[in-house]
């Protein structure tokens, strides 16, 4: 059942990529959209089958693969991954829909996007370290190509930087995984076959350090973040959606699954440092975003800040904080997707992302009024305005973390306030003011360009006023994970 989430998009990617005849760009896009839509439907079906009260892995699948290597095809889903799977399939559909109909080399583009989708699903679903690593690395080359071929002016630089950073991240993670197997004396890489808690505290800390660094690059956390602004800015809007909405979540997921889940004792020791690190990331991201002149770069830095909240919540390790971390991963993905999509629309229509050049886009006839309105909405959601999904997740993160780490939490609250500052700057300069007469001959925004943002806006509102639908999936899992962590002193 779960395998379909992995292999349907990968199979579709292969078919689209290697189909012998010629396929028109529109047909390719339509086929990719259909496949992505089917994956969403299947995800919803899995949600229906998912037992919310069960904190452990569910709907498991197992196939022995290479017993000598300790590699097995073992899949499962729990409260930590079920929302991430939905986010992955949903944002893949949004990314495909928001891609230009005139995309060059459409077959390669859409195959790579579907390949990424299948790979990410595999990473979220697997219960085997080696298999996780294979899926984790599977994204590397497709994302590199997606940035380098369809990116902006400095795409080659951004692509290489992304490749180098994530390769180092992969190496660190692989080293930690091998360490976990070797030092525990396990014969396979299955999560449940690794008695990591039997290791000495020092060894646990060393291995956890590798995990944190490896996934910290992927999230990314300051100071390993420098690949992110370049990659996000240079990538086209659909790819930025996937990078920020999906790939970064893989890093956060890895941190929770392998860091907190497998080294609870070491985690509790490192937690104060991690909480401080999260707060620094949040403040740094927000302050740096304020200084940006490129709205896409501003949102990219905002992403760094918001990922800091997840680290804080993970470090706090209270059931509420873990629920907050998972909610924040989901809401951040949705909010980032709407922002990147809208910035893509603005760039396409206006021809610039420069704050100093943009003005008056709210102008009702010649501007981009609906795009601007949705941009305001995205900014409000990101700033944690009540009634929207961002408020729900941030509130839970802060509420869950304050008892454990009050000062880092307060710093993150300040960072949340700074989010409002840079979004006010962004929106004030971009959407408000007088539309420049000499520039105001923008093409109109088509409905096909509005629809992804409208769908995302609906999700932002719906989960903002009905947060139970967001948080209930991971509550038992969060409680179960936290139970394994020794109490912080």
């Amino acid at each position: 059942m779960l395998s379909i989430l992995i292999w349907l998009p990968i199979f579709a990617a292969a078919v689209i990529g290697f189909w012998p005849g010629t396929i028109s760009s529109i047909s390719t896009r339509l086929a990719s959209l259909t496949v992505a839509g089917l994956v969403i439907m299947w995800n919803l079906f899995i949600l229906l089958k998912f037992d919310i009260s069960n904190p452990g892995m569910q709907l498991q699948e197992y196939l022995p693969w290479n017993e000598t290597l300790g590699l097995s095809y073992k899949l499962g889903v729990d409260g930590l991954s079920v929302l991430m799977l939905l986010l992955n399939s949903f944002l893949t559909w949004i990314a495909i829909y928001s891609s230009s109909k005139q995309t060059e080399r459409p077959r390669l583009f859409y195959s790579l996007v579907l390949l990424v989708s299948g790979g990410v699903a595999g990473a979220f679903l697997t219960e085997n370290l080696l298999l996780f690593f294979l899926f984790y690395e599977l994204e590397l080359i497709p994302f590199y190509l997606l940035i380098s071929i369809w990116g902006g002016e400095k795409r080659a630089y951004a692509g290489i930087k992304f490749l180098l950073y994530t390769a180092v991240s992969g190496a660190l993670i692989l080293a930690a995984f091998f360490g976990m197997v070797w030092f525990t004396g396990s014969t396979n890489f299955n999560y449940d076959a690794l008695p990591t808690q039997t290791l000495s505290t020092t060894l646990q800390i060393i291995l956890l350090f590798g995990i944190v660094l490896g996934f910290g690059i992927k999230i990314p956390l300051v100071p390993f973040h420098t690949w992110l602004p370049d990659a996000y800015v240079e990538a086209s809007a659909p790819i930025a959606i996937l990078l920020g909405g999906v790939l970064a979540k893989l890093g956060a997921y890895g941190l929770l699954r392998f860091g907190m889940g497998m080294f609870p004792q070491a985690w509790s020791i490192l937690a104060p440092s991690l909480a401080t690190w999260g707060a620094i990331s949040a403040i740094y991201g927000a302050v740096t975003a304020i200084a940006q002149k490129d709205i896409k770069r501003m949102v990219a830095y905002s992403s760094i800040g918001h990922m800091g909240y997840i680290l804080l919540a993970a470090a706090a390790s209270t059931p509420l904080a873990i629920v907050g971390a998972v909610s924040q991963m989901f809401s951040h993905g949705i909010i980032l997707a709407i922002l990147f999509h809208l910035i893509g629309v603005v760039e396409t229509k206006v021809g610039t992302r420069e704050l100093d050049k943009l003005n008056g886009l709210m102008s009702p006839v010649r501007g981009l009024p609906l795009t601007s309105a949705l941009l305001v909405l995205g900014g409000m959601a990101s700033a944690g305005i009540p009634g929207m999904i961002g408020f729900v997740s941030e509130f839970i993160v802060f509420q869950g973390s304050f008892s454990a780490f009050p000062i880092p939490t307060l710093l993150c609250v300040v960072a949340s306030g700074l989010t409002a500052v840079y979004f006010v700057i962004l929106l004030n300069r971009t959407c408000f003011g007088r539309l420049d007469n000499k520039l105001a001959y923008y093409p109109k925004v088509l409905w096909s360009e509005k629809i992804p943002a409208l769908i995302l806006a609906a999700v932002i509102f719906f989960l903002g006023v009905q947060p139970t639908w967001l948080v209930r999936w991971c509550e038992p899992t969060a409680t179960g994970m936290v139970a394994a962590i020794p109490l912080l002193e």
Partner: protein
Amino acid sequence: MSSLPLTLPAPTQCPMPNAHYPCFVMTATILAPSTQLPPSSHEFAPVIHRLEAGGAMLPDTPENLMQIIGIYKAYAVPMDFYWRDLLYIAERVFLNPFPFFKYFLPKEYLDLHNHYAGDDADLRIWRGEATAHPELLAFMEKGETFKMPKLLHHLWHDRINMEFAEACMRAMLWHRGMGGNFDPYLDTDEYKANADRAIKAYFKGNPVMLGLYQMFPEMFIEQVRQLSYYSNLGLFWEVMAPVFFEMSDRYDAGDIKSVPEAMNFLVNAIFAMAGRPIYHHVHIRGEVYEIIPKSCGFMWLYEAALPYVEAVFYRTAPFRGTKSYNAQAKQVPDNQKDFHYGILYADVFPVGTAGIPPTLLMQDMLHFLPKYLVDYYHQHCRGEDDMLIQLGISFQRSMYVVTSAVIQALRTALLYPLDDPNPRHLQANRAFFETQIDRFKRPEARLRDVQSQNYR
């Protein structure tokens, strides 16, 4: 080569078959550029040279001509409502303290004969009917939605936006002292006595209002002054509506082929109408009270047309729109005569935002655009979606032609013919043109923009 007329053209026979009434005939005069003067060094030298050659500030292109004529026609239909309602308010609604239905024009005023159209015209400018325009009547019945009670059309704003006309009237009232004799007359004892008689007659049997009048006489007199401006503007537009209709018909018939010809039609119309009396009469219980009698001798050109152009085209007021003006930071001139917020300076792009009166007019004109103009707008920018802005810019172009006509008319009245053989006279003409065009040196002025066809 003949010069522009210095005297009012005499009524002549209309070239229409079976026509036996006085009819206004256009006399187009376009000159070659003067070679007796060195080129102007003015920032807008090409515009100056064009004016000296008998042209307009707007370049002479078929596209410009098509836009301005189409807009004149679209403007004339709501204008036919504006002038009727302005006169209705000035003459009948008068000081009604609750004028809820002042925009509900009674049949009597829809049937009111325009003095410059129809068979019984004093001077027939337009060959159409003297009563309300058929397109206007059709729109008033159904609006852009469907047939429903008048009140619902009103509340839904599916109607002619009289608020625009009132904004223009208030601009004229607010920018008092722009020359002429009409405005100073409003402060005379004679005017106050006339107003007093009308006020007392209007509120006869109403002790509350009469008591209030006793307590605050100036407030009531000021209201009457405003109503006098209602009448002033109504009488002004009564003339302009048939002028624009006629221009549209002549363009359709192929009789107007260039922008200078269109402008000259306006110049000639201005002179033909110059002497039309401006007055303010009030009808109270079957009796007419002459607040400003015709015998005062106020003439259309000097007491209505010129103040209107100055107040509405140039000055108006720093309306609150998408641009905020900070008066304390000197963003608003100290002196009202330096205001520059009229249509010749207006930023038409933020259409639909609050407080920009042309938006209301643009909405009105949208309903009456000729098909060729609709097709034209569909081909540019966002087509249907930003037609309001496109027609707003066409309106701006057309008002530059009207202003050109006024400048040429003033030059005709005050200075010398364009083909005057005396270089000193030509130099005086040039100095006059340059002084007029200096007002468009401001960065906000759209004269630069309308020189380009790509300004849409």
